[in-house]
């Protein structure tokens, strides 16, 4: 970010020197670094108290022991051994935790691919085809408003459409395409993926749109003038320049789906196992160390995915 000083420095170096001496005189009252601390400190404290310390506790508690009703603050690997129970004994069959993570990754991949496709083209339309700023604002707003409304409501909104007697089934039966209602429409992997796409495509649209509006339009014109076809321009100019947005959107969607337990619970009829769902189940059984161990595993896997993706792009530079 440019500070005023940087800009002034270019304009008139003497002035900056002047303002520095003036500021030095003031620093007797409030030094700039003290002001910065005062401004940023409260937010830092909130993150410390409600995010960083809790994460430390998750790691610590994952190594504690437990019985039916309470935590026992003594070192134990039980949280982990319970989680990986049968993983070696059952080989070559997969144990529960491995199956659960495979299923979560599968859901993740499906949702990622679909949200990327939809998000890319929605952002492309908004950035390149909508020429007037007012329309661009209005249509972006139209995409954003659902994000400000409740996720649960947007999930249950599918029930009247996908249920056994829902609109889709009754419509299909009327046209004679099917004789009996399709059961896999609701409370299935299909409905989970549908709801996740419905809820979280927004997280793809925003960063990709952001990258796309920054693309200098003259680059596209240059490609056109040099004889590139529409497809060539897309592949060689637009996609590489929109890559930061694509990566940031992907990180959002993947981390959300990896940790999700609410959408998978509600739309899967509480029947589908997933990485986030295990944690919830363990907490409900008051097995906190096991829940914490699962949280640590999920955190490590999520972190690995993000590290791999952020190799492609420097997040800090893009914001």
């Amino acid at each position: 970010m440019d500070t005023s000083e940087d800009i002034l420095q270019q304009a008139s170096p003497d002035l900056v020197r002047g303002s520095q001496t003036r500021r030095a005189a003031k620093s007797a009252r409030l030094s700039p670094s003290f002001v910065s601390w005062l401004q940023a400190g409260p937010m830092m404290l909130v993150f410390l108290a409600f995010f960083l310390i809790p994460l430390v506790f998750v790691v610590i508690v994952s190594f504690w022991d437990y019985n039916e009703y309470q935590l026992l603050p003594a070192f134990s690997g039980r949280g982990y051994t319970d989680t990986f129970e049968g993983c070696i004994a059952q080989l070559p069959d997969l144990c529960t935790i491995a199956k659960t993570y495979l299923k979560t990754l599968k859901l993740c991949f499906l949702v990622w691919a679909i949200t990327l496709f939809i998000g890319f083209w929605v952002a492309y339309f908004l950035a390149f085809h909508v020429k007037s700023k007012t329309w661009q604002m209005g249509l972006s707003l139209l995409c954003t408003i659902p994000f400000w409304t409740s996720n649960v409501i947007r999930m249950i909104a599918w029930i009247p459409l996908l249920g056994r007697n829902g609109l889709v089934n009754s419509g299909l039966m009327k046209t004679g395409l099917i004789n009996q209602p399709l059961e896999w429409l609701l409370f299935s992997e299909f409905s989970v993926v549908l709801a996740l796409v419905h809820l979280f495509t927004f997280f793809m649209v925003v960063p990709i749109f952001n990258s796309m509006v920054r693309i200098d339009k003259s680059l596209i014109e240059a490609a056109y003038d040099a004889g590139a076809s529409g497809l060539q321009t897309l592949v060689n100019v637009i996609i590489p320049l929109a890559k930061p947005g694509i990566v940031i959107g992907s990180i959002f969607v993947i981390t959300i789906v990896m940790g999700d337990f609410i959408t998978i619970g509600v739309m899967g009829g509480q029947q589908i196992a997933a990485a986030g769902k295990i944690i919830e189940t363990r907490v409900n059984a008051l097995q906190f160390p096991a829940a914490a161990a699962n949280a640590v595993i999920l955190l490590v896997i999520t972190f690995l995915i993000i590290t791999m993706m952020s190799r492609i792009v420097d997040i800090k530079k893009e914001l």
Partner: protein
Amino acid sequence: MKEGRPRSFYVLAIFFAAYVLFLYGPMIAIYVLSFQGPQGGLTFPMNGVSTYWLTKLFQGTGIVDLGAAFRRSLLLGVIVMAVTVVLSVAAGMAFRRKFKAQSILFYSAIASLIVPSIITSLGISLEFRIIDDLIKAHWNGNFETSMGLLTSGLGAHLTWTLPFGLLIMFAIFNRFDPRLEEAARDLGATPWQAFRHVVLPIILPSVIGIGLFGFTLSWDELARSSQAIGAVNTLPLDLQGLTTTVTNPDIYALGTIISAVSFAVITLALCTIHMLNKRQAAKGSDAGKGLV
């Protein structure tokens, strides 16, 4: 380039329209269904039209004590909004010059945004359980719990809203012309006066946007509240509880009411932003526009 619109425009316009329909269609379906007659079921076709289910909800004859949950969610939402606005603006100002721990704060915010909510929620609940145990062991054996709506619950919501607030502040100051503030200082304004009379009025529309994010994200928050809210429930938690048990349009009526609050807040915020922008355009300086 070419005159007129290319064919890809129409293809993508249809794609975009389909996406918007996909976004709004199901939501509108349940708003409509919540106005069914008393015999109504969970799906179309509608069984008569009435406000039976909505009034039933307000009479409290329905499922849980929704009035109390409603007030709790509202209270929490307003507090989260206020704290988010103040802390985000303050931290956003700090980021305009270099300070130690700058990157720690930045990465904390990003991490807080993308670490799965269930982990943050579990961590907060463990933290408060351990604090409770310490208080019970060392100070007061009868102590119940420090977990609650405005302690652990508030903290959990802030870990979700503050990153958004901070990112919006970055976006604001990326576009902000620092020379305006410098000019105010040159005219003898104290840092506070420069902020109060120059910076704040310019960024105010976006600050309202931060408030909008703060309230709506808290009002609908679920995953982080799930483990960290303590003994009481917020409205979305009650709603989620209903998804497994209820078989009549109660749940749609509740959904409609929760959404009505969201839409009221969104409309209010957008109108305020629009008004402020118009006022800025009308009353703002014409410096630099040249002589007419």
